[in-house]
């Protein structure tokens, strides 16, 4: 499934919205999450999961061509953790043990 499919779903569901508005709805969801993480703010979506930043510390790497040691700077990574509901949904046959 792609974003275009989600937009299509919204068009079918909300009859009063045109395609442009449906695009704004779907884009609005992902843009809000992305903008929040840009500000360093996490997003917790009940029933779905949470988005936060993980910090990758500075480490020493090597230039694979020359073998020279280079310092890889600290990096921020978007990280998603699936919520309990998704975990249960995907493993419905067997009860999950913590």
């Amino acid at each position, binding site marked *: 499934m*792609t*974003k275009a499919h989600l937009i299509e779903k919204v068009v079918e569901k909300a009859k009063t919205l045109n395609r442009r508005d449906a695009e704004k709805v779907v884009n609005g*969801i992902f843009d809000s999450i992305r903008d*929040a993480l840009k500000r360093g703010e996490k*997003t917790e979506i009940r*029933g*779905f999961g949470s988005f936060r930043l993980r910090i990758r510390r500075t480490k020493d790497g090597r230039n694979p061509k020359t073998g020279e040691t280079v310092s890889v700077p600290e*990096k921020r990574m*978007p990280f998603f953790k699936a919520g309990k509901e998704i975990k249960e949904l*995907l493993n419905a046959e067997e009860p999950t043990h913590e």
Partner: protein
Amino acid sequence: MRKADIANHICEQVGVSKTEAMDLVEYVLQCMKDVLRKGESVKIAGFGNFMVRSKGERKGRNPRTGEEIAITPRRVVTFRASQIFKRDVNS
């Protein structure tokens, strides 16, 4: 940030009430969950991909008692952020 904040943002962009915006956010998330449940991926350009991965049985330990236990096979959702998203959080 929470779901209500996302709904507020949508309200400002589109002419819908807060309740409608909240329902639409819920609906989109529900569509995504339905797809993931079938084991399919959700690909959002400029954001990232949600994928379902199956994990086999493996051994774990009860961190409290140190007792060895089997972790049952399960399906998990992984998210890979797009290049744009990764670049955005580092700029």
